[in-house]
């Protein structure tokens, strides 16, 4: 068994480092990465890393949100926009406090116990946690088991269970019924048996909402529908619940699609079992509208927040006139230029390095909105994810093509020559395909990259399409053989570095459609390191192992990272908004309060 103190000590150390970095951010905010502090907070603005978690009890928070939710069922939900509601109403086994990427026991009573062979994970549950009405009874380990098992029911079809829990014994046979690898020895203990040594990684994944308890006797009838409509009747374990009627119906009452969602206090919530303060009495979410109007309504309003990434116009408005009403969170994911490692000119490593050297990453960053929305990236594991510091922190790996964020054509020419083009310019005649998104700021990024390629001697064919088309028809379809996709990115599902690098750069993850290994990186050495990295035990060791893989990706110039995204959020004058550093800076309704 891995000892609990080890996990806690690691967590405490990482938190301390995070806080220290945030506190020492006097030079922060530069678009050029100069130190770790600048990537965790932005000078003059609130950051979830340093935000006070205390608040005043009471009041109703109004949330304005242009987009509707995708799925509020904890077994299906997989969108940053849905999570603020899901995590205010549901309690997974572990959760992140808003200012932390370290899991805190939530439904669990203590840290997970991972066996010495890394093949068994045991979790003890707290007692005294109850489902909201109409279920009302106490939560047991069987409810957690059912919550996970139903993820394999095709009517529920959880989108990540086979990515993160694929080592559970019997998962391949699972279809919603009991899985061999999940055992519930008693009402407050659940054991996960794995057929591979991935216990430490599975333990990290227990923060996902799939592990939030679901009462089988209540949900089963909804899960039989194709698709399941449990979300229309879902019950809560968290401090809030979606308003419902006596039968538990939420649809049309606590959630009116496209119109509103209303969170009220869960009468069965016991604060003694939870770390959430739950200051607010009610959260009234109004759906719809348009961003420019919402931004102004929030900035000129009182008890209102906006809960979506803010467009550049809103960021500018807040920066100029409402500085203290903008919260900027790091950890919004990475952005990189994907280049086809398999076919075409960029199968040549030296041409990839040349493009890295030539790219003006400062300009790409500025096109996205500059220091308020990003920091120039030097590698792939981004701030707030374990392994960031081990991979070189803000400066990254010391290689000549990574030294000058403003672009260095001399270094680029050196690598073009090494690639076999003595003039220092690429002289191949075949045009290369560049496909980017047509909306700002991706359009501007694409044009900058396209110009860089031209400066290097490439004959380019730039195609700009709607962003979903870019992924669905071009960059996510290997057979299209797109040479360069200038603006792709990735956001981790939780703070383990494997979730940043594995599906995006592991050759085993290449799929014919919906592919997210955009550059088709398939390096046997990197693949082997990732396979080994999956079984590493302990947060620190995992961070180190995956940081080495990150280094290797930089050495291979598998793609060209250019931005670590920050996410600004806006709050009204009377709101003490607390954002989730682990969820793209979305507001945490269980910690947010009114002044």
């Amino acid at each position, binding site marked *: 068994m891995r000892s609990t103190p080890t996990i806690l000590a690691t967590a405490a150390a990482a938190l301390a480092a995070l806080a220290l970095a945030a506190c020492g951010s006097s030079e922060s905010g530069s678009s050029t990465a100069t130190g770790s502090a600048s990537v965790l907070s932005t000078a003059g603005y609130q950051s979830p890393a340093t935000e006070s978690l205390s608040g005043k009890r009471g009041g109703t928070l109004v949330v*304005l949100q242009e*987009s*509707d*939710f*995708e*799925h509020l069922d904890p077994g299906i939900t*997989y969108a940053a926009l849905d999570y603020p509601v899901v995590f205010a109403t549901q309690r997974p086994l572990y959760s992140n406090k808003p200012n932390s990427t370290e899991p805190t026991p939530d439904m669990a009573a203590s840290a997970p116990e991972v066996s010495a062979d890394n093949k068994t994970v045991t979790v003890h549950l707290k007692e005294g946690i109850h489902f909201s009405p109409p279920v009302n009874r106490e939560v047991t380990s069987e409810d957690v088991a059912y919550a996970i098992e139903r993820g394999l029911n*095709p*009517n529920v*079809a959880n*989108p*990540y269970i*086979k*990515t993160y829990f694929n080592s559970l014994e019997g998962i391949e046979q699972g279809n919603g019924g009991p899985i061999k690898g999940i055992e519930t020895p008693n009402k407050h203990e659940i054991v996960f048996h794995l057929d591979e040594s991935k216990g430490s990684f599975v333990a990290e994944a227990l923060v996902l909402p799939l592990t939030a308890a679901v009462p089988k006797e209540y949900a089963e009838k909804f899960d039989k*529908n*194709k*698709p399941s*409509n449990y*979300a*229309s009747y879902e019950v809560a374990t968290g401090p809030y619940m979606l308003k419902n009627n006596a039968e538990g119906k939420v*649809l*049309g009452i606590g*959630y*009116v*699609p*496209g*119109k509103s969602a209303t969170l009220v206090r869960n009468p069965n919530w016991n604060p003694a079992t939870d770390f959430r303060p739950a200051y607010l009495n009610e959260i009234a979410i*109004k759906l*719809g*509208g*348009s961003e*420019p*109007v*919402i931004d*102004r*309504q929030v900035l*000129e*309003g009182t008890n209102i927040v906006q809960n979506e990434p803010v467009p550049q116009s809103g960021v500018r408005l807040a920066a100029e006139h409402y500085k203290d009403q903008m919260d900027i969170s790091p950890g919004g994911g990475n952005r990189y230029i994907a280049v086809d490692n398999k076919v075409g000119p960029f199968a040549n490593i030296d041409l990839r390095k040349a493009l890295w050297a030539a790219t003006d990453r400062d300009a790409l960053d500025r096109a996205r909105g500059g220091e308020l929305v990003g920091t120039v990236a030097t590698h792939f594991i981004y701030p707030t994810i374990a392994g960031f510091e081990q991979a070189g922190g803000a400066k990254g790996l010391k290689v000549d093509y990574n030294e000058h964020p403003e672009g260095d054509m001399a270094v680029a020419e050196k690598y073009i020559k090494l690639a076999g083009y003595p003039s220092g310019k690429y002289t191949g005649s075949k045009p290369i395909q560049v496909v980017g998104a047509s909306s700002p700021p991706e359009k501007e990024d694409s044009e900058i990259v396209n110009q860089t390629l031209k400066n290097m001697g490439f004959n380019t064919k730039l195609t700009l399409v709607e962003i*979903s088309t870019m992924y*669905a028809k071009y960059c996510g379809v290997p057979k299209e053989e797109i040479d360069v996709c200038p603006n792709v990115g990735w956001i981790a599902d939780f703070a383990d570095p494997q979730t940043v690098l594995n*599906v995006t750069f592991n050759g085993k*993850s290449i*799929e*014919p*459609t*919906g592919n*997210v290994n955009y550059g088709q990186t398939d390096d046997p050495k990197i693949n082997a390191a990732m396979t080994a990295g999956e079984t590493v035990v302990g947060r620190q060791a995992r961070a180190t192992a995956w940081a080495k893989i990150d280094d290797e990706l930089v050495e291979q110039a598998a793609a060209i990272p250019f931005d670590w995204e920050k996410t600004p959020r806006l709050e009204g004058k009377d709101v003490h908004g607390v954002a989730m550093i682990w969820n793209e800076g979305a507001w945490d309704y269980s910690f947010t309060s009114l002044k």
Partner: protein
Amino acid sequence: MIRYIIRRLLWGVVLLIVVAALMFILFRVLPTGNPALLRAGRDPQPKLVKEIEVVLGLSKPLTVQFWDYMKEIFFHFNFGYSYYSQESVKSLIAERLPATLSLTFGAAVLWVVGGLSVGIVSALRRHSLLDRTLMGGALLAISVPEFWLGLVFLFLFSSDIGKFKIFPGAGSYVPLTTDPWKWFTSLIMPWIVLAAGSAAFFARLMRSSLSETMEEDYIRTARAKGLPERQVVRQGVRSAINPMITLFGLEVGVLLGGAILVEAVFNIPGIGELFYKSIQTSDFPVTQGTVLLGSMFIILANIVVDVAYAYLDPRVRYS
């Protein structure tokens, strides 16, 4: 006349079947996005995508899907369920229809009354300063996009973020049955914005049509016979208005298109917004339901217009 109306209604049904078939081809045969793929997460595994396709009924042969789809719509009036909220499309539409009807009917009244009045005044005061001002304004109203005009109105006149806090702003819509006064005030700006373009178009057409009519021989004759000018104008307007009636039916389609943007800007939970969001998320049943409803409105509006035309112009008789 009755036979004509029945024939037009039957043709309307045929047209709706064609629209439904086209919608099916557009969204199922030539999909803009596979909803199963969207539902399968960021790293969609092929097996999971197939499972979701089965659950959503997308794995059946297209002919079976088409028959099921048409059968449900035309025999059971069932448009299916939203892929996301699981709410029936019929309920979603029914819930939002009053808001869209409030918006479009109000805007249509404003556009007809406003457009025709301005057109008549301009025609009767041709080349005057008033005429030039009104036509200049009309040109501006035709040219500006509704989305932009909506934002300008909000930033100028809304009670929350406006410079002059006069009208309730975005998100203030309340149903007529809840509070008639709030309903009315919340729709003033959206009505103006939605009606502006069509009203301006009608004003220019009316001016041109009435100007020509007022120079016809029978108008001159009426004046020569000493008919009061008021009655002369009435005769002229009655003749000049006929082309507008035909255009009204066509403009209903434009109005519904504009409602999508106006509902988005003013955050009115109507059909237009539902349609717009369903396109963004490949929620095909919702898209199909809303487009069919829109088509039905346009077909009905055109039938009403054709019948009205016969009443207004004695020379037109349908058999």
